[in-house]
């Protein structure tokens, strides 16, 4: 076989292999990007559900006026909310999957009393993208109706 033909075949083989390798790298990169997006989307859903679990825990506490004996509200497949005290603060930590979000109620004067929230509740920051901080104003009006307004600034964007 003449040397020129062999060289051309070699160049063609190298070119084909290079293109193949490039296509494989491109496919792997795109798959990796896609996996990241899917993962981030799942984590975002869990982060938002964790926040709502913390809210649900707070509402359970408002209804029952006592911390559960095990310190946990179980929401089954949706996650759970653990309650703990830090000084005068009462911390509700919602959990869904690996995501956790906390609502800290400050100045909780009497856990078993009628007037629970002295001034305000503060929601600690969420670290996941798309979630920022939110602020609660909590209290009980003169008519005894539960009044708790909340705004979640990052979600409202």
């Amino acid at each position: 076989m003449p040397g020129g033909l062999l060289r051309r075949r070699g160049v063609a083989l190298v070119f084909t292999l290079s293109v193949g390798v490039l296509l494989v790298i491109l496919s792997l990169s795109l798959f990796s990007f896609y996996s990241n997006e899917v993962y981030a989307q799942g984590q975002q859903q869990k982060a938002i559900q964790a926040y709502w679990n913390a809210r649900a825990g707070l509402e359970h506490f408002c209804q029952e006026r006592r911390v559960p004996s095990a310190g946990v509200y179980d929401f089954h497949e949706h996650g759970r909310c653990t309650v703990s005290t830090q000084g005068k603060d009462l911390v509700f930590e919602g959990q869904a999957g690996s995501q956790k979000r906390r609502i800290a109620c400050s100045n909780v004067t009497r856990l078993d009393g009628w007037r629970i929230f002295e001034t305000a509740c503060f929601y600690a920051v969420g670290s996941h993208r798309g979630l920022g901080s939110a602020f609660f104003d909590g209290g009980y009006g003169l008519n005894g109706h539960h009044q708790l307004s909340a705004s979640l600034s990052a979600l409202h964007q």
Partner: protein
Amino acid sequence: MATTSYLRAYRHCTSEGAKLRVAAKTLETLCFELRSARSFEAFPKSLRQAPLNFENSGRQKCSLLLRGDQLWLQRDKESIRLGGAWDVQFLAHDGLLDIALPMAAQPALLTALSLRGMRRP
């Protein structure tokens, strides 16, 4: 072809994320409105079945209902759009109201609301 399918998948993910944030916002607004309630007539299992009627602290008759994929609050004669929602499901138990916001391609968002101080059926 790979790039096109990636872009399509990326658009799907971002649109699902946007829908999730809209649902969270709707749930936030819904909870805010329900907190103003002083009495409920009945709790339907799903807003697709029947509207949720209640009287708010200003003694106004309110009704939560779905029109298409939008959640509306009818208060006296005015209608207020609360946000996008395919359905809202309720379950009252032990003085709490479980609220679920089902979503098409994702798990439902679930929370609870204390009914303390509210007259209920």
